[in-house]
């Protein structure tokens, strides 16, 4: 049974779990090229080109991203404070990446994600603040 200090974020946990599944798929596509699944690169040919230019370290990067998303998903599902912190960190890094992509590659599409990520950060921060204030009231 969840305590008064926890607030589960199942939808956001599912969002990060989806991120994990995409990382796993990308790693599989990078490890086993030349299969029928290569058709999936058509969804994002730019990403394919970038991963090919990076080489072997692209798998390490996707492992890092996937693991961090998994930690966030577990933490948010359980309603922990550290889960919220990791999720906010991922969203901020993602925003920096989106903005860099716009500035360096003139890709406008990535700008659309910025206000969405900001809204998620504000939502998580408010829940975090509420959890802390409940904790302080219980402590007193």
């Amino acid at each position, binding site marked *: 049974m969840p305590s008064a200090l926890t607030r589960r974020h199942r939808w956001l946990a599912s969002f990060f779990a989806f991120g994990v599944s995409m990382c796993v798929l990308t790693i599989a596509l990078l490890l086993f090229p030349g299969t029928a699944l290569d058709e999936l690169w058509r969804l994002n040919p730019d990403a394919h080109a970038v991963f090919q230019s990076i080489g072997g370290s692209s798998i390490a990067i996707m492992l890092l991203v996937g693991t961090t998303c998994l930690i966030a998903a577990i933490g948010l599902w359980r309603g922990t404070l550290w889960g919220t912190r990791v999720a906010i960190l991922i969203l901020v890094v993602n925003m920096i990446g989106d903005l860099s992509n716009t500035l360096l590659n003139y890709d406008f599409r990535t*700008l659309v994600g*910025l206000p969405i990520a900001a809204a998620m950060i504000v939502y998580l921060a408010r829940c975090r603040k509420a959890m802390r204030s409940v904790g302080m009231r219980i402590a007193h």
Partner: protein
Amino acid sequence: MNILQSLSALGFLLVATTLEVSGDAVVRLAIYDQAGRMRLTFILVGAILLLGYGTSLNLAPVEFRHVVGLYIATLFVVWQIINFIFFGTLPNLPILVGGTLIVAGGLVVTFWKPAYSP
């Protein structure tokens, strides 16, 4: 400016104004609602959003003098939506009446074609 150009400009303006107003809202929350590390995070998020706004507005393939009316009208509408999302308050009667004038003025600036223009 014809209808198709206006729709394309409107798309860019929607993105730009959404980034601008959410950036303003996040900075406001950072100042009045957060403390410590979370305040720094909010300031960073606000800075990213506002830089995104500047980028989208300046990279958009439209002349600013042609879209200023549409921009103000879009800004007002988006401002109210973001205000509701972030702060949970609805516009009152003066805001609605004034906003109608702002939107009407924006449409006049954008679409009125005078016979003589310097």
